[in-house]
């Protein structure tokens, strides 16, 4: 028997699955020997598209709301005549309907795969799904499904294939490429199907037993019983009956505990994160709530986040308008750009908005572990003015008999003047580095200006030095300090941030798995442990 082969990837949906490998076939269009006329090939294609639409609509009708939303996108794509037109140009050039469709869609998929951001790249597989469904209608070959209980192994997995498959018998998903933000990853998380992505291509024969250990982002081909047993028992240990935050604390190789929290941009992201996998929410933005003038909207969303988090901390950042965020029309003027009246400066200039948000935060704080983060603080007077607003609003609500609690109030460390003098901010309960702004102010290079982007990126050593100084000041004051800037979501920067003394990282939700495995593989001083183990 062949020796077990172990491969590392990235966990996209936690859990452990074992089953025979189902190797996805590469879909290839066959060139029919006899071509009909151009008009007949065009008709065949339109007929196949109509068949695919009927199938998708039937599948959507028996799916839950989230799945139907994903299929809605595919349906809308197929309803658009532009896809058939792209293929028709190839039919006119002499291709059969199947090959023309395959080629045209592949070109389009290739473009999407080159997109600058992962969220858009992750949509390419939805279009692969459309391509295969129409192709199947054209060639009469049924869409690939596989035996219940098996482990799907392939480059990527199409959402409709996932939805048609029976997952009740277990199994799992291993993708050579794939993305944690793909639609199929969302579906896998919502159905608790273990899934590991980004393993790179590896050899495995159809039907060979495979272990998907998606708690560790690990795949074992031809595992021994002992390995299966260990992976399963670790799952049981990791999921005690009481809610636990074990996933939010990572131990470095030398045993130092590092906290990992989520950054949440939109409340709908909460659904895709398992609360037990993080130490809470390290930063939730509030600019994107919709109507910022409605206190109840604020309150409802804060409550949603607190209910999601249970007893774990949820840190809400007060409205950070201005700069690149031009909601409300405020901050749109040149003078209110990056170095003008933004963040806390704007909140103190528009006290009615600040007070409305403070009231919603004070009320929500009564229902969980809420912290408040103030953006763009430069001098202690700004911090004190905002704290006074909270105290006044708390007293006013109390007089009316409204239940409130004073949250911990901390500040973003993103203005160099504040970063260098944290010891002056004795009234702040905690600190969090916002490295996106800190870097642009230290380099005097706007982060949205491509002509100076290289300078902005090259300012990293200066940022790290300021962070190390800030950490030392905060430690002397015995105040918690963390980081919520983009640097913390980039595995290349994590070693230096650890070396600078940071022990609390707030990370974009789609980067959590990567950063977790990065931190778990190093010493607390930032050295990699891989070679020494």
């Amino acid at each position, binding site marked *: 028997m062949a020796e077990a082969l172990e491969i590392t990837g990235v966990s996209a949906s936690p859990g452990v699955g074992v089953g025979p490998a189902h190797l996805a076939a590469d879909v290839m269009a066959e060139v029919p020997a006899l071509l009909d006329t151009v008009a007949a090939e065009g008709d065949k294609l339109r007929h196949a598209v109509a068949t695919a639409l009927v199938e998708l609509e039937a599948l959507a009708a028996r799916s839950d709301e989230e799945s139907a939303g994903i299929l*809605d*996108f595919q349906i*809308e794509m197929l309803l658009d*005549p532009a896809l058939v037109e*792209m293929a028709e140009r190839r039919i006119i050039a002499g291709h059969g309907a199947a090959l023309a469709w395959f080629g045209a869609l592949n070109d*389009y998929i290739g473009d999407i795969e080159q997109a*600058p951001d992962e969220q858009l790249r992750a949509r390419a597989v939805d279009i692969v799904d459309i391509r295969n469904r129409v192709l199947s209608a054209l060639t009469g070959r049924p869409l690939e499904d596989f035996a219940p209980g098996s482990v799907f192994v392939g480059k990527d997995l199409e959402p409709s294939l996932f939805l048609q498959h029976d997952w009740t018998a277990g199994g799992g998903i291993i993708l050579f490429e794939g993305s944690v933000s793909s639609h199929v990853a969302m579906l896998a998380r919502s159905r608790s199907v273990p899934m590991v992505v980004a393993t790179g291509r590896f050899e495995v024969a159809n039907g060979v037993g495979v272990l998907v250990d998606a708690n560790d982002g690990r795949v074992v081909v031809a595992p021994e019983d002992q390995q299966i047993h260990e992976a399963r028992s670790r799952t049981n240990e990791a999921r005690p009956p009481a809610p636990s935050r074990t996933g939010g604390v990572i131990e470095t190789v030398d045993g130092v505990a590092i906290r990992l929290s989520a950054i949440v941009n939109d409340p709908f992201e909460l659904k895709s994160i398992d609360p037990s996998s993080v130490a809470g929410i390290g930063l939730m933005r509030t600019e994107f709530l919709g109507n910022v003038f409605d206190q109840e909207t604020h309150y409802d969303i804060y409550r949603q986040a607190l209910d999601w988090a249970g007893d774990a901390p949820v840190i809400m950042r007060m409205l950070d308008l201005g700069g690149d965020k031009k909601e409300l029309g405020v901050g749109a003027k040149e003078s209110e750009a990056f170095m003008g009246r933004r963040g806390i400066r704007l909140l103190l200039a528009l006290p009615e908005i600040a007070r409305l948000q403070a009231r919603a935060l004070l009320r929500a704080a009564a229902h969980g572990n809420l912290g408040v983060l103030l953006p763009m603080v430069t001098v202690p007077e700004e911090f004190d003015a905002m704290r006074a607003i909270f105290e006044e609003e708390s007293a006013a609500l109390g007089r009316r008999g409204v239940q409130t609690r004073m949250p911990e109030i901390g500040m973003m460390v993103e203005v160099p003047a504040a970063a260098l003098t944290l010891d002056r901010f004795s009234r702040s309960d905690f600190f969090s580095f916002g490295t996106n702004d800190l870097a642009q102010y230290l380099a005097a290079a706007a982060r949205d200006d491509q002509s100076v982007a290289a300078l902005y990126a090259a300012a990293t050593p200066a940022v790290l030095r300021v962070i190390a100084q800030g950490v030392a000041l905060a430690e002397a004051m015995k105040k918690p300090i963390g980081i919520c800037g983009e640097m913390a979501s980039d595995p290349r920067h994590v070693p230096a941030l650890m070396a600078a003394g940071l022990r609390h990282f707030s990370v974009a939700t789609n980067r959590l798995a990567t950063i977790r495995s990065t931190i778990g593989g190093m010493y607390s001083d930032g050295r990699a442990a891989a070679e020494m183990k």
Partner: protein
Amino acid sequence: MDNRPRREAPEAVDTQGYCQAEIEVTHGFGLHARPSVVFTRLAKSFPCTVEIEVNDSNVWLNGKSIVKIMGARIRRGSILKIRARGLRAAEAIHALKALVERDFDEEKKHGRSA
């Protein structure tokens, strides 16, 4: 065919059924799957033509085509110009601009994917 005077102002309206607006995409994930569905469905509900241009590319795409809009790979922070010509053009521009400003009503659809 069309030689009417046009202004490149953020929002230009004339009485001959031509209207144009400019707006920044502020939604967290840019104009992706669900936002594209919502945008094109709204565009298709108007009888006028709707076209969009991304970041001064000088390429005008059919705003009713989700295939074209996805292919344009619009990110957060992109500047969109939207123009409409024909019946109810001003109304169409007003509604589409408001939709982008409301971040495609994403906050009302918790749990729906982007």
